[in-house]
């Protein structure tokens, strides 16, 4: 009997372990099912059920618009008018292109590059006036401009930010703002105080470090100045 009891006890112990194992198995199954469901549902929820193909597809053309058989000639005439209008906007003369991402300046005529130079453009940095509620962001403006004034031996009338940057008080008189050295031998003004000019810091050419103006080395500045009369279009990107 004692042995029988012992056997039952052992048997009872094995039964509990098996039940526990079954529970664990069920928990595992439930977890796997949950994971599988989540795995299937996630793409639906997140919009990941996209199909990706090389583009454009070679199968079939897109029908976005239709013309009746009598309209093509009218459409051709309209296409030519639009194309002429687009060409009319393009410069037939020398123009300057400034790539701020590469700090490169090009003088071009049509597609031909007449001159290429390393320049420096805006740093994109922020300067706050510690005494007043004002701040400046030193970006080179992007877009379309024209050279509206050219100057030899240009004099820089220093704006307020130049003094704030140096940690000096902003002077009241124009005479104290005159700076005859900083801009180099030539300047091409293109609006709102921005210009293409020389630099005292030639070692920084090719870097984005200016207050928004475009700086060139001495020889490059002279050549660009010669190639760019008043009215020269400037494209900055």
């Amino acid at each position, binding site marked *: 009997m004692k042995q029988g009891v012992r056997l039952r006890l052992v048997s009872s112990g094995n039964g509990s372990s098996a039940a526990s194992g079954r529970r664990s198995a069920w928990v595992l199954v439930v977890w796997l099912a949950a994971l599988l469901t989540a795995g299937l549902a996630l793409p639906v929820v*997140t*919009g*990941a*059920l*996209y*199909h*990706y*193909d*090389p*583009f*454009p*597809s070679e199968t079939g*053309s*897109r029908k*976005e*618009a*239709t*013309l*009746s058989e009598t*309209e*093509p000639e009218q*459409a*051709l005439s*309209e*296409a*030519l008018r*639009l*194309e*002429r*209008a*687009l*060409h009319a*906007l*393009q410069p*037939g003369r020398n*123009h300057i*292109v400034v*790539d*701020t*991402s590469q700090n490169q300046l090009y003088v071009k005529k049509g597609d031909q590059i007449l001159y290429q130079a390393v320049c420096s453009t805006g*740093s*994109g*940095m*922020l*300067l*706050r*006036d510690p005494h007043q509620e004002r701040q400046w962001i030193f970006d080179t403006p*992007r*877009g*379309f401009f024209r050279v509206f004034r050219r100057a030899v031996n240009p004099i820089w009338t220093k704006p307020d930010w130049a003094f704030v*940057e*140096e*940690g000096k008080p902003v002077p009241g008189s124009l005479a104290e703002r005159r700076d005859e050295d900083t801009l180099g031998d030539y300047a091409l003004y293109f609006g709102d105080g921005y210009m293409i000019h020389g630099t005292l*810091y030639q070692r*920084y050419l090719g*870097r*984005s*470090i200016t207050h928004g103006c475009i700086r060139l080395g001495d020889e490059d500045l002279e050549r660009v100045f010669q190639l760019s009369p008043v009215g020269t279009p400037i*494209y900055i*990107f």
Partner: protein
Amino acid sequence: MTRARAELGSFLIAASLTLQEGDPNQLAQQVRFASQELELAKAEVLYYVLDVRGRTLTLKLRGVELRRFPLLSVELGAPLGGPEDPDWLARVYEFQRDSSTQRQEMKPGQAPGEHVLPADADTATPSSLTLRCQPGLTIRVRAESERTFSASISDRWALDEPMGGVRLRLRLADEDVRSLYRSLPDKAKILFTPVW
């Protein structure tokens, strides 16, 4: 002027050929595209022309090509049922920047040149860009050097991209990604050349 005339001449020939081939749909698309580009050119805004067949992304201003980025690959992602907008290729899109640019601040009183960023800061660029454009277009640009399995999975799942819209996946040379990142203007316009 000579170049402009030459280009106009070649366009006339191409357009005439199109007419002779008798596909009014292509001509309609050409008119639509020329009209959209002229509008952007007159507005004097920077815009990109995406030519998926020619595999180029071209930055233009007033009709002048400023920079051409060769595309190493172009992939189109569309919902399984197709794009919500079947005319999505005919739209002009506008790039929406997610947040304002983080600016490094200068300290007043520094000697000239002291605030110059280290050289590597000039070239620091994320290896992929996600350009969210309205209406309903997301363009993910990835550098050639980031051609990894995990990048591929990430581009396909794109958990951060809105549902329903069209997703384009462009792969560019590393240098071009850097240039694109640094030159991308806010609210830049994007249009597609006709595809047929």
